[in-house]
């Protein structure tokens, strides 16, 4: 999928740049983007170390299994076909919990860990399993209890009541999650 999309993005961008006479800006932007990708990964590097380390501790302490047991019913519906005692269950639980808490970049390494476990269940195939797609979709739906970044931006923009949008965010997130799950369940056939 990304193979096709990548070609389309580059093709459309370069052709448009030529037509609009902005090819110089395009050229500058591409070169600048390499630097910004590296600095983005560098910014994430520390957070990934921290959270991978913390989560390893959680795993060794048996916390992950506790959480996974609490969320078992939901997971059985979303991710059928994962063996009961597979580490994937715990990894998914941790990742979704981090999403809920709005841990942002901290949630990414957890998501990657969960995806690696799901890939293991899938025999490390290069074709995604239904469970892997569902996990990607649930993550992309991004249910967040507290949208911290947005609240900070609103405060800076002079809002009288920055947190007033939180109920709206919950409703919109829920709509997004439900439609994503339904879409994934329909499309997987």
């Amino acid at each position, binding site marked *: 999928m990304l193979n096709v999309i990548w070609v389309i993005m580059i093709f459309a961008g370069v052709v448009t740049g030529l037509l609009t006479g902005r090819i110089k800006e395009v050229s500058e932007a591409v070169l600048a983007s390499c630097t910004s990708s590296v600095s983005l990964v560098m910014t994430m590097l520390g957070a990934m170390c921290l959270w991978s380390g913390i989560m390893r501790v959680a795993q060794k302490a048996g916390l992950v299994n506790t959480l996974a047991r609490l969320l078992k019913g939901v997971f059985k519906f979303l991710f059928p076909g994962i063996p009961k005692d597979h580490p994937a269950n715990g990894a998914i639980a941790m990742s979704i919990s981090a999403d809920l808490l709005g841990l942002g970049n901290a949630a990414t390494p957890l998501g990657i860990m969960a995806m690696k476990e*799901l890939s293991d269940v899938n025999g490390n195939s290069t074709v995604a399993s239904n469970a892997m*797609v569902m996990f990607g979709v649930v993550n992309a739906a991004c249910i967040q209890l507290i949208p911290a970044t947005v609240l900070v931006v609103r405060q800076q923009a002079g809002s009288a009541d920055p947190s007033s949008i939180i109920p709206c965010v919950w409703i919109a997130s829920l709509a997004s999650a439900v439609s994503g799950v339904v879409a994934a369940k329909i499309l997987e056939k």
Partner: protein
Amino acid sequence: MDFISNFSIPAVIFVIVVIGWIKGVKVFDVFVEGAYEGAKTAFEILPVMVGIIAAVSILNASGLVDILTNLVRKPLEFIGIPAEVIPVMLIRPFSGSASLGLFMEQIKRYGADSYAGRALSTIMGSSETVMYTLAVYFGATGVRDTRHALAASLISSYVGMLAAIYVCKIL
């Protein structure tokens, strides 16, 4: 609210480390072991990031995003989507930093407590950079065929954004 969002990260670290210690885990050794894995993963996703961000920056700089915004303006306004939120809606699934930058600029222009400002905030708070998330997650696992992941994620994103626009009209 502030307290909850400030407290969530220290609380998670605190609870995990203290429970680990009580259960007799060699917490620091285990932490370093896990952190090493984290560093390896970060380097694994670097090439993926360079590819995605390069393509997004081409799209931005070429002016295609602006052209698309103008193209879809009329039909979208007809179904109740205000023109102010269109650029963020278009770019949100594809670039987190670009949409955040755009959001910060737009919310200042329209006012944080105006309808457009609230709708923009709700869109940003309830959606995710789908392309990035999927690229990173599937890239790290070596999956080449992501099947319906992108389609379902985009459906989910745009349903969420529409919900954001309509909910802000009511609440």
